[in-house]
Structures are given as C-alpha cells and as structure tokens.
C-alpha cells in the first residue's frame, strides 16, 4: 500500500484538513463581516470540490481491499461515499443559511465555516472508519466542533446552555463508548472491525456482550435514539437555528452510518446480540418521539422530537440487519436530510417584522393567508415527515418497512407503522395551526433569497416529483450497502 494511493483515497479528508487550517489562519486576520462571508463561500467551494472527489467512489460502487488507505485504517467505500455526500450537502446547506441569520445580530464570525469544515472532516472519518481508533478520532473531532458551534452565540444564555449541556452529555457518551471499545478490544484482542468480527463469532462471553452494549449505548447517544435522547430537545432549542439545522442533519447521517458500520461489520457475526437492542431503540424512539412532540409549542423542540421519531424509523432499517435494510436506511437518510434541511430553513424564514426569529407554534397561526408559499412548503414538509403519500417522506418509510417485511419481521413493521400514526397527530397539528387558525400576522419579515432557494430545492425534492429519483436512489443505496456488507 503506497502513500500515493492512500492520499488519493483520502483526498477529500486531506482537502478538508488543509483548507480548514488555511481558512483558520485567514479567519485570524479577517474580522470583518465581508471577510466572514468570503470565508463562508470558500468553505462552500471546498465542500463542492470534496463532493466531486467523493462522488466517483459512489457511482463506481467502490468496495473491497482497493478502498483501504493507510494500512487499512480508512476505507473509501461506496457506502462511505454515500454518507459523505449527504454529510457534505447537509453541512453546505447549514453553512449558506448561516450568514443571514447571524449578521442581523452582528454575531457572524469566520470561525463558523472553519468549525463546520472540521466537523465535516470528523464525520468523513467516522463513516470511513475501519477500526475503533479511527471511529473515536472522527467522532471526537466532529463532537468538539459541534460543542463550540452549539454555543456559537456567545452572548446568548440559551446558546451557552445548549453548548454546555451538549458538551457534558456528549463527553459522558464518549466515555461510555470508550469503555465499550476498551472492553471489546479486551475480548477481541484487536481494534480492527474485521478482526473483531472474526474474533466474536458464535456464543460470546458476557464481557464482550457488555462491550457491545456500551458501544451501542454510546452510539445511541450520538444518534439521539431513545433512551439516550434527552439532550436533543434542549440542545436543538438552545443552539442557533442554522446550527440546529446542522445538528439535525449531518451528524445524524454520520452517526447513523457509523452505527451501521459497527453493527454490520465489527459485530456482524453477533446480530442476535444487538438486534433486540436496536429493535427496542427503534420502537421506543418512534413512540417517545411522537408522544414527546405532542405537547411542544416551540417549533425547534418539536422538530427535535420529530428527529428522534425519524431515527426510530431509520433504526428499523438497521434492525432488519440485511443489505436491503441497510440500503433502505440509506435511502431514508437521503430523504430525511432533505426534509430536515427544508424544515429548519422554513423555520429560519419565520421572522417577525424586525427580523426576530419566530419559534413559537402559536405565532405561526394562520400564516397560510399571508405567506402562502412558505406555509405550503412547511405543510408539505410536515406531511412528508409524517410519511403521508404522495410526498416523498412516505418513500423512506416504505423502503424501511418493506425491508423489514422482506426479512420476515412483519410484527416489527406492523407495530412501527401503527406507531407512526401517533406521530401524524402533531404534524397535523402544525398544519392545522398554519391553515385552520385565524392569522396572528406575526410572521411578516422578509426572507433571504438563499433561504428561499434552499427551501424551494428541498420542497421540490420531497414533492411527488421526488419519486422520479427512486430508481437512482435505489441503485446507489443498494451498491453502497453491498460495498459495506461484502457477500
């Protein structure tokens, strides 16, 4: 394995590291708004280039030993490429919506794009990890950037609180994960996924089971699956909305992809050991996410519960533990990213006459009268999140449940889909508030063109027109899943 090959495979990550460092230096010298804007667009350009570098691996269905870099510490497979493209797209979206939000209160700093680049770098490492060390480095790199981002509004108490909460609980989760990895290492004698899989076959010792459980607990925290979801509503509410957009999309993709990698490769021979855990987390997330959202009046908290709810559906794809289930999870992730970005961008566009963000559900009452397009887009996103056809969100649930049914897990599918009806209730409530209630005329602020464009793209993607993408999504996610789970 020569270095040239390794660097070629890790080109996007190298690009992120170098450009992150260069832009950090640039940020140190340019404190002006204009400078911050330039750095933002440079970061977006870097992401675009990285996406172009990543894409070939996905379309060629890269798999096998040819994808390993640096003596097998890193794998640039089609699976990783699928996740990376989603991560980069989500991060870029969270980046371009930020300036308009922060500049109004004079809080935009060039650190924002730089931190974003480092977070993306961490996430790319996560989804390319082939052993527990790469996993941990990626995860921490991402988390450290994320803690700072959560507290980005330095003078805002809520933001600071969100950052602190995220940091404390995130560190705890990292500790749990580390404990799990050390136990796994102890019982498997290796940190390499393939080695762990080879070591942990058949009936395994109680200690190894503990290791597995702790690893899954740590990962469950990162994907905010029940019962490790408690931080999510608080952090989502407190963090500045563009950062919440980011949290709800890119790190979710990375952490879920990572969970899939760990479950299907490292613990690929222990499906019976982790399957009950994942099934429980999936159903509990669906139910708790749905019930928790019903009482919320803050839209950010509501979307936080909605993301918990969606993680439940995504985990059903993992619980199935078949290549089809993994492919379904990837398809759902792609749709989930579009819905989440769309939802939060719409939220960013809810502003009163002074440009203050409007986050309360009651304040968007009747906006369908005076902000028709915005209301229609947000209603579409709500119906899509609820999984009502013909919106594209239905397709995500469809493929996940179909994978479950094909694998013979009909009961899981039936319970999961019945529980989705509970979730439909609060999505309907949002639509009801926007469409049926008398207008309060609070949302009157002008929208940034960037937000409008992004919302339009997301709305188009989740509209029935999205079904035209199903063939493409299906073939890509199938080849990505096949790259991960070698036959």
């Amino acid at each position, binding site marked *: 394995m020569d270095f040239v090959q390794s660097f070629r495979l890790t080109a996007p990550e190298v690009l992120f590291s170098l450009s992150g460092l260069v832009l950090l230096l640039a940020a140190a010298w340019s404190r002006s708004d204009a400078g911050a804007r330039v750095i933002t667009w440079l970061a977006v350009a870097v992401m675009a280039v990285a996406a172009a570098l990543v894409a070939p691996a996905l379309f060629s269905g890269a798999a096998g030993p040819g994808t390993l870099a640096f003596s097998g510490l890193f794998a640039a497979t089609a699976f990783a490429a699928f996740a990376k493209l989603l991560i980069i797209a989500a991060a870029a979206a969270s980046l371009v919506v930020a300036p308009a939000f922060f500049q109004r209160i004079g809080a935009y700093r060039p650190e924002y794009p730089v931190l974003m680049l480092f977070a993306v770098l961490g996430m790319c490492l996560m989804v390319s990890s082939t052993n527990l060390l790469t996993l941990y480095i990626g995860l921490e790199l991402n988390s450290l950037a994320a803690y700072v981002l959560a507290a980005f509004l330095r003078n805002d108490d809520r933001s600071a609180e969100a950052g602190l909460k995220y940091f404390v609980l995130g560190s705890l989760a990292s500790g749990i994960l580390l404990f799990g990895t050390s136990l796994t290492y102890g019982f498997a004698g290796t940190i390499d996924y393939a080695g762990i899989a080879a070591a942990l076959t058949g009936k395994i010792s109680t200690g190894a089971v503990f290791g597995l459980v702790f690893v899954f607990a740590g990962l469950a925290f990162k994907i905010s699956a029940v019962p490790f979801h408690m931080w999510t509503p608080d952090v989502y509410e407190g963090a500045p909305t563009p950062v919440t957009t980011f949290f709800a999309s890119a790190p979710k993709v990375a952490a879920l992809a990572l969970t899939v990698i760990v479950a299907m490769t490292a613990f690929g021979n222990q499906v019976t050991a982790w399957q009950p855990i994942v099934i429980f987390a999936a159903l509990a997330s669906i139910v708790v996410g749905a019930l928790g959202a019903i009482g919320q009046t803050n839209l950010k908290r509501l979307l936080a519960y909605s993301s918990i709810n969606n993680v439940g559906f995504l985990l059903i794809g993992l619980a199935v533990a078949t290549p089809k289930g993994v492919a379904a999870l990837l398809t759902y992730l792609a749709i989930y990213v579009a819905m989440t970005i769309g939802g939060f961008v719409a939220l960013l566009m809810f502003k009163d006459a002074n440009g203050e963000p409007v986050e309360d559900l009651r304040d968007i009452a009747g906006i369908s009268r005076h902000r028709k397009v915005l209301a229609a887009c947000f209603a579409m996103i709500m119906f899509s999140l609820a999984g009502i*056809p*013909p919106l594209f969100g239905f397709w995500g649930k469809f493929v996940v449940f179909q994978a479950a*049914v094909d694998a013979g897990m*009909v009961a899981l*599918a039936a319970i999961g889909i*019945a529980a989705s009806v509970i979730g439909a*209730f609060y999505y309907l409530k949002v639509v*009801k508030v926007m*469409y049926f209630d008398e207008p309060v005329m609070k949302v009157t602020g002008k929208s940034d063109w960037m937000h409008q464009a992004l919302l339009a793209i997301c709305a188009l993607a989740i509209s029935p027109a999205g079904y035209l993408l199903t*063939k493409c999504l299906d073939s890509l996610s199938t080849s990505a899943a096949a790259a991960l789970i070698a036959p």
Partner: protein
Amino acid sequence: MAGFPILSVMLLVPLLAAVACLMVEARAARWTALIATLINLGLGIVLWANYDVGGAQWQFVERAALFSGFEWKLGIDGIALMLIMLSVFLMPICIGASWEAIEKRVGEYMAAFLLMETLMIGVFAAQDIFLFYIMFEAGLIPMYLIIGIWGGAERIYASYKFFLYTLLGSVLMLIAMMWMVNEAGTTDVPTLMAYDFDPTVQTWLWLAFFASFAVKMPMWPVHTWLPDAHVQAPTAGSVILAGVLLKMGGYGFIRFSLPMFPEASAQFAPLVFVLSMIAVVVTSLIALVQHDMKKLIAYSSVAHMAIVTIGLFSFNPQGLEGAMIVMLSHGLVSGALFLCVGVIYDRLHTREIDRYGGLSINMPYYALFFLLFTMASIGLPGTSGFVGEFLSLAGIYQVSTWVALICTTGIILGAAYMLYLYRRVAFGDQKNADAAAMPDLDRREWFLLAPIAAVVLWMGVYPESFMAPMRADIAALDARLARAKPEGDAHLTAPKPEAATATAEHAAHGGAH
C-alpha cells in the same frame, strides 16, 4: 384510441388545473376548475364510449417503469370504469355547488378539489398495488384541508378524526401489501388477483385490508368519523365524500379482498354480515332521531354501505352486481341529497330540520327534486336505488335468509327516516317566516340537480347501460370466488323448463353482443 394515454391525461388535467388555481384569483380559479372538470367529464365519456364491452378484461392499459419498487401502471375494467364515470360526473357538480358558497381562499379550495379528483381517478385506475396505495392515502391530505379550512364550527375535531381514523386503518394494509408483493414477486394487481395465497395467511392479510376498507366504507362500528366529517365539511366536500370516497372502501373489497383472499373472505363473511346487519338497523334508527339534516343523510350512508357489504359478500353475481349498483346509485343519490341540503343551507345557514317546513309551497321545484332523491334513497322502483338494493338483497337471500330479512328491515326504516325528513322539511305548515320567504332554485342549482336526477332515473329504468360493462368482470370475480363459496340456506330451485328458456335467452342475448 390506441396509444393515447387517456387515463394519464385524465389524471394530469385536474392536477395542472390545481396548480393553476393556486396562482390565480377567485373568479379565474372557479372557471379554471369548472373547465378542467368538464374536460375530464368529456374524457370520461370518451373513455366509456371506447370501452369495449365484452372485450379484454383490462383496457386502456398504460405502463411506464418510472419508479423503483413499483410502476406507473394504469388500466381499467368495467367496475373501475363505472366508478371513474361517477367521479368525473360528480366533480363539475361539486365545483358548481361551491360557486357561491365558498368565498374565502377560493383558489386553494378549487385546487384541493381538483387534486382530489386526480387521486380518485388514480385509485380506480391504478393497476400497481403500491400506486393504488399512494393514491388511496394521498386523498387524506386534500380532504383534511377541505374539512379543516372550509368546514363548519366543529371542523377541526372532525378533520383530525377523519385523518387519523383512516390513516390508522390504512397503514396495516400497507404492511400486508408488502408481504403479498414479497410472496408473489409482483406488484401487478391483475396478477395478484389470480395469485393463490395460503389460506391461513389469507386470514391475516384479509384482516389488514379489512381494517382499511371497513374504516373507509365505513362499516359499523368504525363509522363514527363519517357523521362528523360530513356535517362539518362544506356541501361539495360532503358530496365528494359520500359520492366517491366511500366507494373506495367498496372498490377495495371488490378489487382486493374478494379476489385475492377468497377463502378468508368466505371465512369472515359471517363477521361482515353481522356488522352489516347491526349497521343497517342501528344507523337507520339513529338517523330517525337526528335533528341535523346532514347528519341524518350521513347515517343513512352508513346503512346503505352495509347493503353494499352484504351484496359483496354474498358470493354470487346478483349480490356483486347489486353492490356495485348500490354504490353508484348511492354516490349519485346521497350526493344529490347533500346538494339539496346545501341549497337551503345557503339560504338560511342552518341544517336544523325544525327551522324549515312547508318548503313545497314556496320552493316547488326544489321540493320536486328533493322528493325524487328521497324516493331514490328509499329505493322506489323506477329509481336507481331500487335496482341495486333489490339485487343485493336477492343475492344475500341465496346465502342467508336471515341476513336478507334483517337487512330488508333497513329498507323499511330507510323509508321511515327519509319520509319523515321530507315531511318535516317540505310538507306541513310554513312555520318559519324566513324559511317561507326562500326563493326557489336558481339556474345554477337547476344545472346541479337536473343531471343527477336524469341519471338516477336512467339507472332506475334501464340499468343495463351500467351493468353491461361490469358483467364480464363480475362473472370473472364470481368464478374466482366459486371455490370458496359458502353454502346458502335458501336452496333455491327454479322450475326446470323456465330455467332452460331463461338460459337459452341469456345465451342468445350474450351472443348478440
């Protein structure tokens, strides 16, 4: 006709018009909607004219492999043709009924209705099981908005109830569909209709489908969303709900439950009979004591739908044909009755029966139409209601005389509540001055009611026009069900010679086609 994708065009016209309606102001939206629905009616007539009775079972088939996992596949048989005709016939009438009654957010209203039309035609024309599901479920969104935005005082509760009830019913059906597709290896409805599922599994699949269709139908005891939704919906919303949406449940039974799970259908037929008998008697009695006209008609819908279900599960051609005719007839008649309520509601803004009285004096033409539809609802010979109810009951008589007996009491009770309603509204003293001052039908209302009246009489006098396209499909379904047919308790025996002539005549008749 070959090559022209008429079904896709029929789906596309209202969809494009819906988008257009969102962008224009009220007056233009009304006209756009009317023109689009009339175009679709025209296309529907072309469809019927070109439908080859006695030809291939599935006609106008279109397919395009646009999606992964399912296909864009459309096609109709006689049953679907009739229900599509019902939809396209009622749509312009709904638009007309909303012409003046809807004043706020007209563009969105018209768009919701046009979207509804696309989805209804889609449900009946879909030949891919998942495409059917998507169309079937998607109808919830526009209907939710129609009830919630333009409905009456209790509209929000009603809209939630409608949405969540029907959604919960449907999701389990989706899981069953996935299982079937996995088992049979195809999403093609005609193929699945001929696929023999294991009878023990059929039980579960049948129950999952039943959960959905019984709610949609609606059958007692899951009918409670219907009176709320009907009462709160605007007039045209009620018309479309009663006229077409309820038929989706019956269509589901006839297209999916019966042919795909014949054994399970036979097994559960007693359950359906019991629920239907209860529905016929109980909801008729409930209808008898209503003070709200719309609620009364809503309960009568539940009773009529129970006649449909017993016809469907009688496993013989009379019953199946009767069920189809009841569906078509009920679609027209209940729609017309809701329009009749709408006419006086627009004048007095109340649905309270006691607020009216003696309308035949000041509104003679209105009273005439109302009487016709009342009689059709009761099932007076010469109207469409008679044909369907008679056939359904004749069909069920061969299976169970008791069910026939009890369901026939529903017809008598139906006469009771409808005549009682009519007496209180149209006859008697003009006890309310404001009701007595109401003007008779205007030209627009004539245009709404007269076509329905004509079709009701047509279907009553010469039902052959409507039964001919469906006959071959009903026969095919009957043949499919033959192996699971439960033995009846009637043991009908016809005198030999007459039976022979009848068969000979039938054969000659069939040959003439």
